[in-house]
């Protein structure tokens, strides 16, 4: 999380967590989100499966948006063991495993967790996060990235308003 030692306010940190890249809106949404977070001055780490990270690396070969990335389970381990944490975490969810990762992240991180639930089962998946300490956003569809873009702009604006 942001280091406020010695009276200095350091940059806020964000985590973007990606699951299986089965639905294509995830990759374009993640790149859009990385750009929005950079614009807001947040240092962002991406955690995901090997395939999800490969999608980003191929789409962003010069690393304009993707600054750092790591394996999703190594990320969970680092947070669970107190070695790393983030001020705000965004989790892209379109399956049951995504719900489980979100619930885990919300439990082990001291920061804010934002669940971005998309795909045709979004409502059902969102119900699985009832009672979990996270902000839930349901995004219609999984192929057209425009609904996701609109929600991402809203949540980044919400995050920025909490500074």
């Amino acid at each position, binding site marked *: 999380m942001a280091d406020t030692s010695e009276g200095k306010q350091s940059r806020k940190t964000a985590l973007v967590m990606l699951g*299986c890249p089965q639905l294509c809106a995830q990759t374009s949404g993640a790149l859009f989100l990385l750009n929005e977070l950079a614009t807001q001055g947040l240092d962002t780490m991406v955690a995901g499966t090997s395939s999800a990270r490969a999608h980003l690396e191929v789409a962003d070969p010069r690393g304009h948006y993707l600054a750092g990335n790591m394996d999703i389970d190594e990320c969970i381990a680092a947070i669970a063991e107190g070695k790393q944490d983030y001020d705000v975490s965004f989790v892209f969810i379109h399956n049951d495993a995504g719900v*489980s990762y979100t619930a885990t992240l919300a439990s082990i991180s001291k920061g804010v967790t934002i669940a971005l639930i998309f795909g045709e089962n979004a409502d059902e998946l969102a119900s699985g996060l009832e009672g979990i300490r996270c902000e839930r956003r349901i995004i219609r569809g999984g192929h057209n990235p425009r609904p996701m873009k609109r929600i991402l702009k809203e949540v980044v604006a919400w995050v920025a308003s909490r500074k």
Partner: protein
Amino acid sequence: MGCVEKMNYEVLLRHCSFREAAEYIRQHTPECYEVPPGFKIFDVHIIGVPPILVGIEGEDIIFPFTKPCHGTFLLRVRGGEEIENLRTRGKKVR
């Protein structure tokens, strides 16, 4: 999967939901503990929605193992020292 992958494990359920794995443990294991998300067992941090259940049956531990693309697997692994760790740190359900 780390060291669990190298162990002699049995898959009891595969590609299931986290709830289905928890229900199996609740119904089929004689000894059962609740642990928090991220609880470390062997070298795995358990991924899941609370309440997360881990079972003990004889010398084996039965626990959910979740992968992002494949859902949850319910594994049975020889417990060794992890059984005492679970009994000490987990909240006993049964």
